[in-house]
């Protein structure tokens, strides 16, 4: 089958520049919206997925349900665990066991009156041994009265990034804290937290207990060992959960949000198809005579249909590329707050495949029905159409 020249489809796009430009803007907007929603879903998933480490076991209060924030365990728990378990990772005679206090609290950033809800984790120097993805990217480990700010903590607090720069101060629990440094944690939920020395935090909060103990297990060390400890020390009322499982359960908690996101993607795509259909119907209706002339010359209906699809797909590919570019430049990495912290919108390969793929489908679905309608007109009627 002989196809119509490529230039024919391309030049037809410039035939009605205003209409083509409007369609391009419409398609770009639709595809960009899809990019944003997919980036949101992917960012949320990535944040929760990155937060769990398979080797790390969390020990916290049996009575706290699924929420570490409500947990309270005795301060002696880390020492008891260290003395009782053989499977904890140990290097240079240091056990990788991190006692922590974790809470959500109102935090005031210096220079603003507004209090933001932030997440604070009281830690010791053992914390980076257990959370191996944690990396200080600026400043230093916090000393007394200092905090280390996660890369996305500003987003969780609803302030500008500069407000949490090294040397700035934040106030929570009636005390002012100087920011000693900043850290990243491979996109995990830790990045939206403030980390301060455990002792200072306990003093500020006037509490002796801990929220949890995080332990990195050595190769061969098992969760069963920790679970057995928890079940035998009934007086401590503890439970042990692998960190990956803990965050996986949180992912389940956000499943409806993700589902809603996908529904929004479908709805936007559906609206985009109608926009595409409308444009292509308009473009084809005005060209019935020309399309019939091509048939009279000997071009087959399929070749003409393909050329019409080519036009629509060219336009949608253009829209996809522009939307992808905008998404990379303006959407990718944008921090979004949620109850568990903050995460960065993520325009990853899947987002590109879904965004650009939807763009292509919009072009195809938008072109086929109008093209088929145009091909239903007989050549004799068509060549005399106005």
């Amino acid at each position, binding site marked *: 089958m002989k196809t119509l*020249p490529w230039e024919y489809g391309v030049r037809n796009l410039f035939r009605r520049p205003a209409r083509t430009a409007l369609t391009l803007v419409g398609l770009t907007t639709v595809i960009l919206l899809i990019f944003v929603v997919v980036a949101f879903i992917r960012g949320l998933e990535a944040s929760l997925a990155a937060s769990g480490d398979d080797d790390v076991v969390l020990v916290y209060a049996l009575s706290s349900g699924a929420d570490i924030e409500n947990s309270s365990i005795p301060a002696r728990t880390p020492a008891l665990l260290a003395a009782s378990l053989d499977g904890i990772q140990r290097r240079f005679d240091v056990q990788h066991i991190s006692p922590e206090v974790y809470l959500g609290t109102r935090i005031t950033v210096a220079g603003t009156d507004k209090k933001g809800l932030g997440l604070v984790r009281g830690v010791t120097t053992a914390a980076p041994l257990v959370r191996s993805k944690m990396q200080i990217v600026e400043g230093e480990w916090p000393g007394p009265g200092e905090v280390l700010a996660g890369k996305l903590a500003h987003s969780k607090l609803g302030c500008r990034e500069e407000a949490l720069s090294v040397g700035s101060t934040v106030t929570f629990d009636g005390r002012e804290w100087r920011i000693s440094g900043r850290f990243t944690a491979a996109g995990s939920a830790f990045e939206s937290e403030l980390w301060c020395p455990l002792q200072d935090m306990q003093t500020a909060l006037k509490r002796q207990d801990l929220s949890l103990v995080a332990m990195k297990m050595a190769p061969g060390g098992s969760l069963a060992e920790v679970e057995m400890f928890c079940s035998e020390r009934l007086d401590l009322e503890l439970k042990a959960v692998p960190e990956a499982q803990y965050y996986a359960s949180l992912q389940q908690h956000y499943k409806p949000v993700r589902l809603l996101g996908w529904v929004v993607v479908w709805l936007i795509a559906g609206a985009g198809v109608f926009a595409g259909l409308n444009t292509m119907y308009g473009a084809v209706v005005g060209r019935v005579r020309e399309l019939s002339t091509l048939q009279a010359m000997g071009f*087959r209906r399929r070749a003409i249909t393909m050329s019409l699809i080519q036009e629509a797909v060219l336009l949608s590919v253009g829209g996809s590329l522009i939307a992808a570019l905008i998404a990379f430049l303006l959407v990718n990495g944008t921090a979004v707050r949620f109850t568990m912290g903050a995460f960065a919108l993520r325009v990853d390969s899947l987002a590109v495949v879904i965004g650009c793929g939807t763009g292509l489908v919009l072009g195809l679905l938008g072109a086929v029905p109008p093209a088929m309608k145009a091909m239903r007109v007989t050549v004799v009627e068509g060549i005399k159409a106005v």
Partner: protein
Amino acid sequence: MTLVQVKNVTKQYANGEETITPLNEVNLEVHQGDFLSLMGASGSGKSTLLNMIAGIDEVTSGEILVEGTDITKLSRGKLADWRASHVGYIFQTHNLIPVLTAYENVEMPLLLLKMSAAERRKRVEIALEAVNLTDRATHYPRQMSGGQEQRVGIARAIVASPTLVVADEPTGNLDDETTEQILELLQRVNNELGMTLLMVTHDIEASEIAKRQIRLERGKLTERQSESTNREITAA
């Protein structure tokens, strides 16, 4: 040599509850090198007959043989291929592709044939020269007058050296002077290039340039030989 044989062709179509029969058991023979004009009142079926011979309209019954091939039996796809290599169509409203230049418009039918780019270029140049539009090759239809557009339409119809050139009211939209030029050009296509032409027209003067003049009345064809013989025959 007989090129086209129209055998007992009937065309009917429904108009509400009424059945209209513009062509009833029509017979016609067109010979190689003929220039045949087809006249008749509006709605007499002259364009319908032309379109059926050109393979863009279907017969209700009967046969149309072109070089021995019954085109009424061809599938839609095969008929499209047949049109590409056998028919050049000149439209009343020129029907040029607005986004293509004169050169590209003329080249279009050649894209359907197996041909090298060099051969295509040569043929397009010859066709444009034949209609005296070489200097307008890069112009778009909107940049040309009606007469120039029609000349491009003629170049497009003849560029592939088709078996048959059909023209439906080729001067219907043109002024007197341009009409004369176009008719002269059609005569040259027939005389100098030896192409077989079938032209529908309602203009008596235009019809008189043809070697054979046929009238279509009440579904039947009547042929009148050229003025020199002034002899009327019934083709059916």
